[in-house]
């Protein structure tokens, strides 16, 4: 019984730490994004609140929380509130299968820096990524507004299309590693001493596109096309309820999917030992935020696709490419013998 209690306590601590870090990170990414966007567009970004505008996220949060809450007329109130939970919960649950580093020991207890090391880790990623579609659809529907609803339907079409491609693009990596556990995939890469991006470059490019589409980033952000739809599905939300939707979609999703990309293609926490015991964590976070930076960079430089092109690209170009990639990988693994 005591062993059970200990593992429960450790898991609860892990969840608490991760929740705090993830939400704080999400808030501070808004500052990073605004600074970055400013410098890309030859502006300064936030400078007024605190040094370099570092307190800006706190000021934004305070503003959002003290705003008057307005619920649109004819809205379905329970669904209107539930939609926020349905958008935020999957984004946070994505973090539960990310391995941040190797196992270590404290006071004789083995601790894995991952909340649940299930052997279907990648399936959980797909499941949570696609469950996010409900937050979008229902927030658009419940607000009783045509702009919001068109935005949510567009987003639903995008998520359904790209979720399929995402699943097939990752199959190549699963074939190579011989497991679906995220920890297992990292270990497979460390055993061979090669990152899977060198074996699966096509898969990585497809994954990157799907990641952009799922987290509503340019060039696939047709659901929030400001010029046509105001901002799409979250237009009728106000205050912190509005803040939660982009927080989940733009920041938490982007960070979580980047971390999964690092696990799948960039060798997870592997890297030269330069900082002693914390060097795996350093490498993992450095790689993840390198990728997040790349996504933000794309967001503020590229134009967006037309609404009809986005789904066409997914079904007609990317899905056949992904299938071909799986087929070729399977044949190569069968002939040369990958993981057992």
């Amino acid at each position, binding site marked *: 019984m005591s062993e059970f209690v200990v593992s429960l306590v450790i898991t609860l601590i892990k969840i608490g730490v991760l929740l705090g870090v993830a939400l704080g990170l999400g808030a501070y990414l808004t500052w990073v994004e605004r600074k970055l966007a400013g410098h890309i567009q030859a502006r300064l970004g936030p400078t007024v609140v605190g040094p370099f505008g570092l307190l800006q996220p706190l000021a934004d949060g305070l503003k959002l929380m003290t705003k008057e809450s307005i619920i649109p007329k004819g809205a379905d109130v329970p669904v209107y509130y*539930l939609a926020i939970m349905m958008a935020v919960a999957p984004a946070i649950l994505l973090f539960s299968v990310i391995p941040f580093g190797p196992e270590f020991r404290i006071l004789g207890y083995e601790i894995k820096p991952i909340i649940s090391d299930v052997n279907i880790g990648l*399936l959980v990623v*797909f499941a949570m990524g696609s469950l996010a579609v409900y937050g979008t659809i*229902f927030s658009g529907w419940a607000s009783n507004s045509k702009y919001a609803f068109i935005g949510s339907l567009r987003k639903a079409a995008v998520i359904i299309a790209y979720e399929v491609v995402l699943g097939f693009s990752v199959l190549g990596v699963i074939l190579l590693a011989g497991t679906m556990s995220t920890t297992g995939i990292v270990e497979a890469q460390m055993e061979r001493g090669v990152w899977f991006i060198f074996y699966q470059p096509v898969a990585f490019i497809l994954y990157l596109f799907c990641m952009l589409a799922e987290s509503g980033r340019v060039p696939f952000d047709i659901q929030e096309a400001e010029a046509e739809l105001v901002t799409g599905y979250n237009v009728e939300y106000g205050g912190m309820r509005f803040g939660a939707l982009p927080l989940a979609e733009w920041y938490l999703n982007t960070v979580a999917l980047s971390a999964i990309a690092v696990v799948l293609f960039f060798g997870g926490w592997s890297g030269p030992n330069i900082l002693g015991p914390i060097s795996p964590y350093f490498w993992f976070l450095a790689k993840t935020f390198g990728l997040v930076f790349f996504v933000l960079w794309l967001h503020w430089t590229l134009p967006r696709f037309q609404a009809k092109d986005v789904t066409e690209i997914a079904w007609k170009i990317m899905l056949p490419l992904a299938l071909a990639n799986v087929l070729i990988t399977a044949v190569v693994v069968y002939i040369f013998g990958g993981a057992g």
Partner: protein
Amino acid sequence: MEWVIFGVLAFWLLVSVLGAVLVKNPVHSILFFLSSVLAMAGLFLSLGAELLAGLQIIIYAVAIVVFYVLVITTIPWEKVKRFEGVYKKELLFGIPVVLVIFLLMGSMVLRGRFAQPVGVVEDNVREVGRTLFTSYLFPFEVASVILLVAMIGAILLGRKEE
């Protein structure tokens, strides 16, 4: 301890299934249905069938239910308002059927023996894959052909007439 988890999940499942049947608003009904599918995935997970839980979420909770949701949310709301109450005639025919099925299942539970797991399954994914491609290869292939035919049919139907 496992009983507590099972109890919570089973209660959640029953409440959401009842809600899906009894609620009038179709969107609330589909939400209850979604919640029941998630509870089912939780049950699979608590029984150690991890692959099944993952597939339950991906295929049922997302791929299938999302199309229900898309259809239901795009119904013009005046049509929904016009429909009031339950289907009385259907209920009249339905109750005897439900009763008979309930009695059958009850007697099965009381008389039969419960299946006992044979050995411990280490890797869900590997085991399911092995079973599918050895013992059940023929049904598996037939199912994939049926799905292929359905897909071609859907493409034909969805094609624009020139």
